[in-house]
């Protein structure tokens, strides 16, 4: 990706976020449909999408509430699905930590899988960006994603039927994430981190509350960091 474009960081963000429309529109529409089918008022369905703004957790919460699980269990389970957001928050801190508190608070609200993934890739590619430029990029990514999340939750809740059948939209999420993961694999240490995480995520997929992903993610981070240290030591030993 060329960095000599005249595009502002904000518009680069908009462009990088745009492909995720493919994921956001059907996913949020489905949430709206399921909300209405479950008997939620439109305001309640919308409150989920606006206050929580995290698809997997919203579906988890709604599913457990429909099954009449204890409210506290439903709450803890949905929050567990979102624990990875704390990892994203930590990972963004070295890049955005110097911004004003209100900007960090707004960015925190808009930290979703897609905005986080785009941001860390681009921040590493553009190490000379200032903090305001990074913030502008982050909000650029969010622009084509989060408003659509609200709008299509509402559309789904009002219309009551999901996207036309026949399109394999179920696979839009894996494809858009895989397309982002490819460029992230820049060093052997990145590969070690990814392979460790994939192996553990598949082995632990049966664990409740999304805990398999958390364990896989933490193990991947440790493996990557250790591989980095070992590779550096190896390189230093040679010279």
């Amino acid at each position: 990706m060329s960095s000599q474009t005249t595009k502002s960081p904000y518009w680069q963000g908009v462009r990088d976020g745009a492909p995720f429309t493919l994921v956001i529109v059907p996913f949020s529409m489905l949430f709206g449909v399921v909300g209405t089918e479950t008997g939620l008022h439109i305001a309640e369905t919308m409150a989920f999408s606006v206050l929580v703004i995290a698809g997997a957790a919203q579906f988890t919460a709604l599913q457990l509430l429909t099954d009449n699980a204890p409210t506290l269990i439903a709450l803890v389970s949905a929050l567990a699905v979102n624990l990875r957001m704390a990892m994203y928050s930590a990972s963004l801190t070295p890049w955005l930590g110097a911004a004003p508190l209100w900007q960090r608070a707004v960015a925190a609200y808009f930290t979703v899988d897609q905005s986080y993934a785009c941001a860390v890739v681009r921040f590493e590619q553009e190490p000379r960006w200032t903090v305001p430029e990074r913030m502008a990029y982050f909000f650029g990514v969010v622009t084509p994603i989060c408003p659509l999340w609200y709008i299509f939750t509402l559309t789904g809740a009002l219309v009551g039927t999901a996207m036309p059948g026949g399109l394999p939209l179920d696979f839009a999420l894996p494809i858009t994430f895989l397309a982002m993961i490819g460029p992230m694999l820049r060093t052997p240490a990145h590969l070690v981190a990814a392979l460790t995480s994939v192996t553990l995520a598949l082995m632990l997929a049966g664990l409740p509350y999304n805990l398999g992903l958390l364990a896989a993610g933490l193990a991947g981070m440790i493996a990557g960091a250790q591989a980095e240290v070992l590779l550096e030591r190896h390189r230093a030993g040679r010279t």
Partner: protein
Amino acid sequence: MIDGPALWLFIAALGAGTFALRFVFLGLVGNRPLPAWLLRHLRYTAVAVLPGLVAPLVVWPAATGGTPDAPRMAAALVTLALGYATRNVILAISAGALTLFAGLALLA
């Protein structure tokens, strides 16, 4: 299922809890320097969490009821390989989607 004020309280608590998770480091640590060992681990957050998130969705797709599916597997491999080789996200997404459509059409 709960409704009325109890449901609103639930939604508000889930919203507040989720925001707290997103805010905890970015908001509270802010500009304070982080130790080198922690930074080294944080560099691998994205590349550790996202593949772990996607892997079960690829191997056991929800659309097939969790049965491994050749068109989806092929689409995943094409997307990942092109993303890795070209670093072009949009090209990788397009090629992956085409592979999926072609694979599903062939098997239909």
